[in-house]
């Protein structure tokens, strides 16, 4: 079945994966939710009309940012004309990917780090998780100390 004209394509970005490869534009068909997919939570729309949608398929959990595809195209054209929003060698925020407690910080402001250098250790669920620098740079700021409790998404270190 093809969708009637009233249906509009939706763009989906994977919020939890953080990567572009997960993005897709999906034409909504009136077949309903695919079998085996469970819609968890559907977030309230933001000012741009985007919603976070949680879906679980075969045990895999996804947080997808859904947006009307036409609106997404318009928004992107608007932001790209502003120019300097494209990420390059600018500061990089290292964020917590799991909640837990910082047990060691290996770097301080103005330290030079190479890609792969240990930055800090976060303990969660009895496991020590080492966070490493994704690229070389100079440490601009360290926002946590040993003993700090962190939640997902908290900025831990900023690389210049």
């Amino acid at each position, binding site marked *: 079945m093809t969708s009637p004209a009233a*249906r*509009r*394509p*939706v763009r*989906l970005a*994977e919020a939890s994966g953080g990567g572009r490869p*997960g993005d*897709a534009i*999906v*034409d*909504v*068909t009136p077949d*309903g*939710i*695919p079998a*085996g*997919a*469970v*819609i*968890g*939570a*559907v*977030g*309230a*729309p*933001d000012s741009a009309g985007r*919603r*976070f*949608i*949680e*879906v*679980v*398929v*075969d*045990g*895999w*959990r*996804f*947080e*997808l940012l*859904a947006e009307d595809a036409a609106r997404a195209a318009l928004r992107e054209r608007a932001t790209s004309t502003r120019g300097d929003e494209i990420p390059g060698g600018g500061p990089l925020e290292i964020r917590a*990917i*799991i*909640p*837990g*407690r910082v047990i060691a910080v290996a770097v301080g402001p103005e330290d030079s780090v190479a890609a792969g250098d240990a930055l800090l250790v976060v303990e*969660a*669920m*009895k*496991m*020590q*998780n080492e966070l490493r620098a994704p690229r070389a740079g100079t440490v601009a700021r360290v926002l946590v100390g040993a003993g700090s409790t962190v*939640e*997902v*998404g908290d900025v831990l270190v900023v690389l210049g």
Partner: protein
Amino acid sequence: MRKDSGGPPIRRLLVANRGEIAVRIMRTCRDLGIETVAVYSDADVDAAHVHAADAAVRIGPAPAAASYLRADAIVAAALETGAAAIHPGYGFLSERGAFARATTDAGLVFIGPSAEAVEALGDKLAARRTARDAGVPVVPGTFEAASVDRPDALDAVVADAEGVGFPLLVKAAAGGGGRGMRRVSKVDELPAALAAGAAEAAAAFGDGAVYLERELRPARHIEVQLLGDAAGEIVALGERDCSIQRRHQKLVEESPAPSLTRGERETLHALAVKAARAARLFNAATAEFLFDAERRFWFLEVNARLQVEHGVTELVTDLDLVAEQLWIAAGEPLSDEVRRAATMAAEPSRHALEIRLSAEDPSREFAPAPGRIGVWVMPAGPGVRVDTAVAAGERIAPHYDPLIAKVMTVGPDRPGAIDRMRRALDEIVITGIQTTLPFDRAVVRDPAFLEADLSTDYVAERWDPTASRSVALSRAQGAAAQAFTTAGNSPSVGGASEASLHKDGQTGSTGWARAAREDMIDRWPR
């Protein structure tokens, strides 16, 4: 219940644990007419084990070191509530000799082996020496702690390492669950591995002693369930194959171990009983072995406590191991049911499986994935048992173990148990957190697992999450697009706000829940 004496083995029992194991122990207590006391941290004010108990005592803030690891507070809670005995469960204080001693010194019964045996076996080096002296083959390695503090002693450790052979493992004498463990493939990695292993062991167990053990690969991890009474009689209740592990934490367990001959089973059970007898064990314990490619058994360690996976043995033998522990602790000899199960241990007539469902992301090397659970649907039906202590809407705190449920199935044979496991796993629905479910479902469909081609390298060799996850992602995108269109202009659906999708906030219930709890404790007759 069973015993002719009339009353239960113990009048009131404190369970020094949390989560599914605390709930599971309390269930047996209800069966036997034993009153139960829970202990809880601030993170667990509203937890299932607290609700399952007749009384509950707060023992401290969320971190385990300030609550569930506080022997003094737990013993005090037992005395205060009039409990006659303490069951330690697994993990936390269960293998601390000092806790067993503090319990008995306070005039209470410790549900487990004697403090001396717990101490002797909690030290893996002492256990290795005991097994070796009893004539049980032990995994090749050292029998004394390596000196890591003195740089001048490093030469001796290097010489030991060369004697053991590479690759080898640096292991914590006080260890368990892979903590303090480091793999060393060549000699220059040794100093760093010793330092890191000792530091992690010191942080996790308060004891930085480490030793060396040869890495046996490929190998299967097979363990024997033991039960012994105060009079010194010890029996083996069959074995469990726990080869499928990641980071030395078990993921899948089954009993009996597939493809062992009756003769191999008898040999293994006899070795386990021999090691246990040498360590003067009683109550419940498990002897762990590696089974190598030449079909030889090598002693690893003894866990002087109830294991996480004890339910698998219960499904095969039809015993309640916690009930047996309580009768043994009350001074009873091994029951007729236990003796009967022991005689059938080499030729079991059923097969059982357990899968540990954890809050971990199997696409990111099983990294912890705590958060708040949304939908929570567990399986049921013939041959299915689920041990869990979490529910819809509950927060899986980062303070404790990521295990959220143990799914067990039993059947007349291995294929029958696997068929039921496949069905059971397909019934599970969990939203809000990533779990190991994709891995679990893949295991029970994997030809290598179905053929019982098991090894401790299984996860590295067989698990590739990429394809499975990307297929699921494209289906998820279709579903999300549909949900987005359906949602139209309506506000959030399913009770979720954007904040709860992204960042887990505090539980809103603590204030009134704590008040209710305190009220409940006040009502407890002293």
